């Protein structure tokens, strides 16, 4: 299949405005005849639902949590980028575009990224109008901070809880539309299947998580905004409920999956403390503004620290290796995430890791505390320091934080064209669950930006074009596709409920996570990936024989919910491995050991791999078909990334 990205013609900076003009409109009286389904209520979902309802469409929103405000966007800490240039430090739409393309290691679409940078400025205006309490200076204007991969200060923030405040803004807009009767909200509902009628997405099958009742919902279009799939690694910074089920079901119904192997491993997370660990906690990248990353210069000294014979604060300045500052003098501790993570791994692999397990490096604030005083540091990062203290029982004002990389974000996701439409007409993917804007590595403070750009400012335009094209005729739920989809869900649930083996679903999930982390994590190679594929296939077969699922469908049943999600994660895991295996280059977060520069940096192969890998499902237990969207760079010259 030829993938049509539908990138508009014309100069980069004019594409989006011209495209908006060329898109068909739905007249106001007709909008109320359409129903739009939105799955997921995070930044992308809530902002899309509210904006579409304001335009006059009828919107149905679904989330698995008990309230739309719990979606995991809420946990984003550091901030949101916008090319406002309020600092007068040389920022511009073009610079944000350029930084994002470069940060993504030249594997994102130019046109999409430029649009994102253009809309970034509108997002801040919108959020302020809603009453989002961003950080301000004494003059009453907005404050900014710096983030990795950029040399300007363009990150807007609300202490360490930016995601929370932005989501509450979108949630309030959503609430207003619920009050107006334009949005019908379905909490504690999980989408388990997509209904495709004559090649178009026209509905979903959901399970009411309290009663177990399966419901059919019809709509003129279906928008997935279900977030990332980092939990395929079991341990990640995602919420416990974050899952791939909605996009995986859509994938199996025909939506191509773009760059599944592009995973972001975030450099600053609290290290694993034991086998009981259920999730990992991020310490915001903003900490790298003031924290300095180091390990001891010698293995012997690291060994002493690990055994508890030497305290970090007793290691002399000369005996410390501030490896990011040493290797990347111009960006220092603010190199992009993939670079910071790989360097931490290198230090640990070199035997210079710290903490009981040796799998950690230090993030040290003593310089900043001396320079600015503890109250200043507390005002900037207080909640993060408190969180660290709660989890580790160590006071980060006195001892450096111990940090280690952890799975955080998935740049891959459903393939979408410029209009955010997947390969199934009428099915759209917004926010983290699409593959679009971050290439092979996402810069910090860009996820919130993308989620809100998609929801507030892109989909309200592009969806109208599709809807105007299909017309407002009501969707016919008597079409056999609806009954078939529901039957398929019933069968699957019954099969899951019949599993009475001897291994819990969590045990399978943990095993999958270990395979993925070991062979498809921060560094990947052909032998490891080949091995991983076999291991995952065996795990899948074993799961469907020996997993334990208890209870019945007609109740709140977390055993059943989890089993369905993990079954999908296992299948996705295999596709991620396939994708990582076929991409024999390194780029961004995807580091193939076979492809590195002499200095150990990711070495791209633009001649052979400057494309988006879009995988097509061909049938159960069949190899997926690879489709390629070649990336064309008309404005940016592809170069080896350098942050030195």
């Amino acid at each position: 299949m030829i993938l049509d990205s539908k990138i508009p013609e014309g100069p980069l900076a004019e594409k989006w405005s011209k495209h908006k003009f060329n898109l068909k409109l739905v007249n106001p009286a007709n909008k109320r005849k359409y129903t739009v389904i939105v799955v997921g209520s995070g930044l992308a979902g809530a902002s899309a639902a509210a904006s579409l309802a304001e335009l006059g469409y009828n919107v149905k929103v679904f989330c698995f949590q008990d309230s739309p405000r719990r979606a995991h966007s809420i946990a984003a800490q550091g901030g949101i980028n916008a090319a406002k240039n309020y600092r007068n430090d040389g920022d511009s739409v073009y610079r944000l575009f350029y930084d994002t393309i470069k940060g993504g290691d030249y594997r994102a679409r130019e046109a999409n990224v430029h649009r994102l940078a253009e809309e970034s400025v509108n997002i801040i205006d919108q959020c302020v109008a809603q009453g989002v309490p961003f950080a301000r200076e004494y003059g009453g204007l907005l404050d900014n901070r710096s983030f990795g991969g950029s040399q300007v200060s363009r990150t807007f923030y609300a202490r360490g809880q930016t995601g929370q405040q932005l989501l509450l803004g979108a949630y309030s807009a959503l609430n207003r539309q619920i009050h107006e009767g334009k949005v019908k909200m379905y909490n504690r509902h999980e989408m388990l299947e997509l209904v495709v009628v004559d090649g178009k997405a026209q509905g979903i099958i959901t399970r009411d998580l309290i009663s177990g009742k399966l419901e059919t919902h019809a709509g003129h279009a279906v928008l997935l905004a279900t977030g990332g799939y980092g939990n395929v690694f079991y341990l990640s910074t995602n919420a416990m409920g974050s899952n791939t089920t909605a996009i995986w079901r859509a994938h199996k119904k025909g939506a191509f999956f773009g760059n599944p192997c592009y995973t972001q491993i975030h450099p600053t997370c609290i290290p694993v403390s034991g086998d009981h660990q259920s999730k990992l906690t991020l310490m915001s990248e903003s900490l790298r503004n003031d924290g300095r990353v180091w390990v001891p210069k010698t293995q012997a000294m690291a060994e002493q620290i690990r055994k508890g014979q030497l305290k970090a604060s007793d290691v002399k300045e000369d005996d410390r290796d501030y490896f990011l500052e040493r290797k990347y003098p111009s960006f220092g501790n603010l190199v992009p995430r993939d670079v910071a993570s790989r360097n931490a791994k290198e230090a640990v692999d070199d035997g210079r890791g710290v903490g009981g397990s040796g799998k950690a490096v230090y993030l040290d604030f003593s310089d900043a505390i001396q320079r600015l005083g503890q109250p200043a540091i507390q005002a900037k990062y207080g909640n993060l320091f408190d969180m660290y203290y709660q989890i580790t029982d160590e006071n980060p004002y006195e001892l450096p934080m111990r940090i280690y990389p952890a799975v955080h974000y998935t740049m891959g996701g459903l393939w979408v064209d410029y209009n955010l439409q997947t390969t199934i007409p009428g099915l759209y993917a917004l926010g983290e669950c699409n593959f679009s804007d971050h290439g092979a590595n996402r810069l910090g403070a860009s996820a919130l930006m993308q989620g809100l750009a998609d929801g507030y400012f892109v989909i309200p335009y592009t969806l109208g074009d599709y809807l105007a094209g299909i017309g407002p005729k009501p969707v016919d739920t008597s079409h056999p596709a609806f009954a078939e989809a529901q039957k398929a869900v019933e069968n699957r649930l019954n099969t899951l409920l019949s599993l009475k083996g001897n291994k819990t679903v969590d045990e399978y999930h943990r095993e999958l996570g270990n395979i993925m982390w070991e062979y498809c994590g921060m560094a990947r190679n052909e032998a490891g990936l080949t091995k991983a594929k076999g291991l995952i296939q065996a795990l899948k077969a074993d799961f469907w024989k020996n997993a334990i699922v208890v209870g019945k469908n007609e109740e709140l049943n977390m055993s059943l919910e989890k089993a369905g999600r993990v079954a999908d994660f296992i299948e996705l895991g295999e596709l991620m491995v396939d994708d990582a295996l076929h991409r024999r280059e390194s780029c961004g977060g995807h580091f193939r050991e076979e492809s590195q520069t002499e200095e150990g940096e990711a070495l791209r192969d633009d001649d052979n791999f400057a494309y988006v890998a879009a995988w097509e499902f061909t049938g159960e237990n069949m190899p997926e078909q690879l489709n390629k969207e070649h990336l064309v760079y008309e404005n940016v010259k592809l170069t080896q990334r350098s942050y030195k």
Partner: protein
Amino acid sequence: MSGNMNLTLKVWRQANASDKGGFVTYKAENISPDMSFLEMLDVVNEDLLKKGTDPIHFDHDCREGICGMCSLYINGRPHGPKRAITTCQLHMRSFKDGETITIEPWRATAFPVIKDLAVDRSAFDRIQQAGGYVSVNTGGVPDANEIAIPKVIADEAFNSATCIQCGACVAACKNASAMLFVSAKVSQLALLPQGQPERYRRVQSMVAQMDAEGFGGCTNTGACEIECPKEISMTNINRMRRDFFTAKLFKEEEI
């Protein structure tokens, strides 16, 4: 491992909303002090699953203290014995080997039990749907820096806005009052210039919905403030009362 603990749990089990429910005793063995409270429950649930029995249901999601989904009334206190944290941030080092821990759901008429420790908090959503927003559509808003807001006001609004909607204030209150929650939401927008046009209308709508949901009245006990994982201050309640009275006395027509 040395330092690991053995505990006895008395857990509220209730099959569904109409079931009477009751305490069931479980052993939690070999618990590491570095586990979070919810990870301890995960361990107990893994055991239950291996025996083919129904695990203990509880709400949770982010496990980093921000989504507000986890609840649990632990030894008579919402989110357990420590100040200013949620249950998911509570670690087992706060307990002693051999201890008996009692775990209950939030108890309030307006928060009916769904199953075991999970309750229905949708009343909080409905209160905000009644008016907890600034009525602006997407697009067509002024530049963000055209609205100058004094730092102290922005910071104070932020403090109110950190409420995570967990419901601990209601669970802690002998009257099951939702005043701390509602007042935090009212205050955030009442403090900011963006919230002024609908200020008095908003407070009346939200209070009316709060009453309709069956939450109790506030008698200034202050348990809510003590138990709030985000340390939302009772000053918010005073602010809401002031706005509410002002609205009723002078601006009634605005609703």
